[in-house]
Structure formats: structure tokens, C-alpha cells
């Protein structure tokens, strides 16, 4: 009895080139960019709810003092201010808490769900941002990266 020939697994490059196409270019991975900031603003906005006082995330049960540079706090204030333009009212300290949640998996490689959610939504975004908005977001992204928030 003839055994069915095993279907050989190809590398992505072998598969793609085997389709007959020529490589044109690579789409860089989104880190945090204008689309990411828009997503984050929407995502953050949904998390915060008010029961009479300042909007907050009801899952936040622990409050701790976190040491940081003056410059870091100023940058948090700048980013929080930027989110107001996306109709999201968030305090710099709350923003720091969210940044930790998204940043920690990069250190611990655990709990990939928030990261996967972000990457999944980013990859499916079809929104086109005005250029001035993209430029501003690039600048804020750069600040956030330099401060180690993102």
C-alpha cells in the first residue's frame, strides 16, 4: 500500500516566494504609533468608569507609591493631556498604572493577553489619521518611549 506522501512544511520565505511573487517590502511592527495611541485612548476610556467621583478602573485594588524622576511625571502629564483630545480623562498616575500593565509582560513574558489584544486590534485598524494628528502622536510616542513608559 502506498503511503500518502508527506506534505512538506515550508518556511514563510519559501512559501511566499513559491507563490511566484517578488518581495517588495516589510511592514514594521507597530510599537506605539498614531493608530496605537488612538486604540489606547479608546481602550483606556472603556476601562474607566465613575461612581460619582473621578473615573477609575474598578479592578484597581492596590495603590502604591512609585518613585520616579520629575521628567517622567511631566511626561505622564503630557500624555494624559493628549488623551483629553481623544475625550479620555485620565490622571497621570492612572496612566502610569496602565503603562505598567502593558509594559510588564515584556519583562516577564507572562500574561500575553493584553499585548495580544493590542496587537490584534492594531493589525485590523483601517482608520486613517490626519497628518498633523499623526505627527503629534509620533512626538508623544517618542517621549513615552524615551521615558520607558511604553
Amino acid at each position, binding site marked *: 500500500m502506498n503511503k500518502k506522501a508527506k506534505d512538506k512544511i515550508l518556511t*514563510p520565505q519559501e*512559501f511566499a516566494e*513559491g*507563490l511566484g511573487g517578488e518581495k517588495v*517590502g516589510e*511592514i514594521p511592527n507597530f510599537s506605539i504609533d498614531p493608530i496605537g495611541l488612538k486604540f489606547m485612548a479608546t481602550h483606556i476610556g472603556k*476601562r474607566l468608569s465613575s461612581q460619582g467621583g473621578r473615573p477609575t478602573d474598578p479592578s484597581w485594588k492596590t495603590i502604591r507609591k512609585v518613585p520616579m524622576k520629575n521628567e517622567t511625571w511631566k511626561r505622564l502629564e503630557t500624555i494624559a493631556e493628549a488623551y483629553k483630545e481623544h475625550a479620555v480623562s485620565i490622571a497621570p498616575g492612572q496612566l502610569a498604572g496602565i503603562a505598567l500593565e502593558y509594559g510588564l509582560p515584556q519583562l516577564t513574558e507572562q500574561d500575553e*493577553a493584553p499585548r495580544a489584544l493590542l496587537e490584534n486590534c492594531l493589525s485590523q485598524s483601517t482608520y486613517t489619521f490626519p497628518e498633523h494628528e499623526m505627527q503629534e502622536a509620533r512626538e508623544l510616542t517618542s517621549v513615552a518611549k524615551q521615558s520607558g513608559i511604553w
Partner: protein
Amino acid sequence: MNDSEYSSKIDMIGSIGNLEPKDGNIGIFVPSMERDGTPLDHEKWRSDTIHLMSSLFGGATAFEGFGGWLDEEQGNKVKSEAISVVVSFITASELTEKKKDCLKKYLHKMGREAKQGEIGYLLNGIFYRIKDFENE
């Protein structure tokens, strides 16, 4: 869906069986016009692409868009049209020779029958274009 619901869903999916996470993706750009601007039956091509990609990779989703491409062989003219990008999430083990051959046959057929200058596709973030279509 919030993060804890998402995490729960992932745990549930994982507990159902030995499911390999799909961490790659492949996208096919489906045109709506021939190279000379003659309208195509876009819905049929999109539907056929979804059907094929679903058969090969377990599922496919079409995203609509509007794009342009530079036709270098026809006076460097930028040609724009409505398109759909049909995307499937894939695992590394799904990139087999047989699936490649099947998809290649379809893409070249689309290039010929839809009278395209190029057929574009994405694999894991890298964009390729087919300019010369092989006969069946």
C-alpha cells in the same frame, strides 16, 4: 471584551484541545478593476478567495479598503480602486508545499482572468507582488 474576559477565553480555548496558537497571517489583495479600469465582479473574486483561504487555513476575513498602485509598465500611472484584503491567521505548520501550490494556482488564475498588472499578497508583514502570471 475586557482583558480578563479575553484571558478567560484564551484559557478556555486552550483547555478544549491541543490548539496551536495562530501567530502568523497571510493576506490577499483582491482587485475590483482590470488593469485598464474595466470593473470586475469583485464580490465573486472576494467570495472565491475567502472560500479558498478558509479551506486552506481554517478561516478568512475580508477587509475593505481603497488603494492605488504604480503601473510602471504603462507610463508610471497610479491606478486606484476599491479592494478587499482577505486575511487568514496561520500557524507555521500550515505553510505546506501542497497549500502553496494550491494558492499559487489560484493567484495566478486571478491575475490572468481578472487581467491584472500585479497581484499583491502579504505574509507575516512582508509584501510581495506577482507580476508574471503562469499559465495553468
